[in-house]
């Protein structure tokens, strides 16, 4: 959890704004440090977290979270965290083993055009478990869905429209119905105006998700090129904010990722410059 980012977003683990859909996007840069932030943030705010890790193994997220002061293994044991390890699950779909009680979540791999209904149902069942305390189990706050990252679904053969449907259903269930939050990472590697064949789906997905989200964190490299002390810039764009009038608001910050966190500062005020 990065405290500086919390003050920028005016959020704290004690009070989670209900019904928020945060879209983390990056273009020719890496925004996964924000996913680690949100994972530790929501675990600390005692939300029930459903994590779809499609890019890395559980061990990876666990190791990074350890550095940020949160134990994923414990959270999983306590039932706070539902972790879907996409890499393992997809393997069990592709190479079925007799004694494997596989979940239905990754069933779309067999026939991508069918859509992501099975994945949505997995998310829903994972999120519904919150609030209802079983005997002796702890009670958790509103559900949170984290996806790292949705662009992988495109590479797995699902088309952008189906991913948008999936995110729409997740938003309707998690954000609107259960008053929880949702964080999705989407990556785009092409240039902004360029329309290559391979990038068309990713562009369409980014645009569609931008229309759906309530807060967009867009991470880019520095336009002036690589710099040792500034790793890139993040554009924070609120679509709507309660009591702030109906308009979008944009802010641009530069950031540097450290070993155990990240620092954010207004443009041109890096300690290396001043």
């Amino acid at each position, binding site marked *: 959890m990065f405290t500086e980012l919390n003050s920028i977003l005016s959020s704290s683990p004690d009070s989670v704004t209900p019904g928020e859909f945060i879209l983390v996007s990056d273009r020719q840069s890496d925004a996964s440090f924000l996913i680690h932030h949100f994972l530790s943030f929501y675990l600390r705010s005692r939300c029930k977290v459903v994590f779809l890790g499609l890019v890395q193994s559980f061990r990876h997220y666990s190791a990074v979270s350890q550095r940020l002061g949160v134990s994923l293994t414990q959270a999983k044991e306590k039932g706070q965290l539902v972790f879907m390890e996409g890499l393992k699950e997809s393997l069990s779909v592709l190479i079925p083993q007799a004694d494997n009680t596989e979940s239905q979540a990754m069933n779309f791999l067999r026939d991508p055009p069918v859509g992501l*209904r099975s994945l*949505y149902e997995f998310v829903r069942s994972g999120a519904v478990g919150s609030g209802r305390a079983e005997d002796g189990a702890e009670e958790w706050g509103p559900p949170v869905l984290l996806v790292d990252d949705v662009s992988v679904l495109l590479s797995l053969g699902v088309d952008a*429209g189906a991913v*948008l*449907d999936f995110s*729409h*259903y997740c938003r*309707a*269930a998690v954000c*609107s*119905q259960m008053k929880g939050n949702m964080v999705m990472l989407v990556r785009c590697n092409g240039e*902004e105006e360029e329309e290559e064949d391979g990038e068309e789906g990713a562009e*369409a997905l980014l*645009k*569609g998700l*931008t*229309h*759906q989200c309530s807060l967009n964190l867009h991470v880019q490299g520095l336009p002036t090129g690589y710099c040792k002390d500034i790793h890139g810039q993040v554009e924070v764009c609120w*679509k709507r904010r309660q009591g702030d*009038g*109906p*308009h*979008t*608001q944009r802010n641009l910050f530069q950031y540097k990722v450290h070993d155990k966190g990240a620092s954010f500062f207004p443009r041109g005020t890096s300690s290396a410059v001043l």
Partner: protein
Amino acid sequence: MLSELLQGIETGGLLIIQDSCSYSGRDLLRSFIAAALNREEEVHVLCFDVSEDELTDGLKPPATQRLHVHNAYPDPLGWTDHPAFAVQQFRLEDLTDLVKQASQPKPATLVIDSLSWVLRHAAPPAVCRTLQQLRKGGAVRAVVALLHADMHQRGTVGSVCHLASSLVAVAPGPKGNEAVAKITKRSKSGKVAQDEETFCITEDLTVAVLSRPSSLPEAKPNGSEEEQADPTANLTFNLRLSESELEAKQKLTLPFVFSKEKKTALLHPGPGSGRILYEPDANDDYDQEDPDDDLDV
């Protein structure tokens, strides 16, 4: 022109609000809903993109009695068992039934939020046909739809927008809470009027038109500062002319420009000018076919 549209759309009209990632047209759409409700009209909303609460947030209770929200947001594709309205039902018959269920004598205004959802799941020609039938059918008085233009192919957006009697394209304005609307209005006589206005929407969903930015330099949608910079600004030499220099420049005739005097002088040689007379003698081996025959090439 925007306030004119807010005061009412003609019967059988189709108004499309076009927006993009950078500015959401939903607030303007909500203003249209609020304006229609204030005129005591019945309003039916097909709600795909946002939840009912989010859409009706800010609308006053007495007016909301005339608002009928058909909430397709939780389940637009029928993944659960009982969807209120699914995207497959976007057909004339179903929509007419839906509007008639409210059993109001007055034809209502139909609001679609957003057409992009429908276009993603139905074939564009079918959607266009349904929209056209709705306009002519008489069940609804007018249709107001939101379209996320950057989510579709240009051809799809074009064909849907051709159907519209009024088109409002919104883009972010120069200041934070302001936006620019480009309005195209086609009247029944076939006349097309275009206008561009800056507006802002207050919290009670009234639209304040600020100015007509026709005098302002046209802001490019994604124009960065570098694009707007004048390349002739900091040159080491002078590209501009003062008035006296311009006058002197215009007085000058260029060497190969034929003036009248020059032309007449060349065409009608004066009496004093010489002529060359040549009579070939017998030794001259002059070939008419190849005049350069004697050259040693």
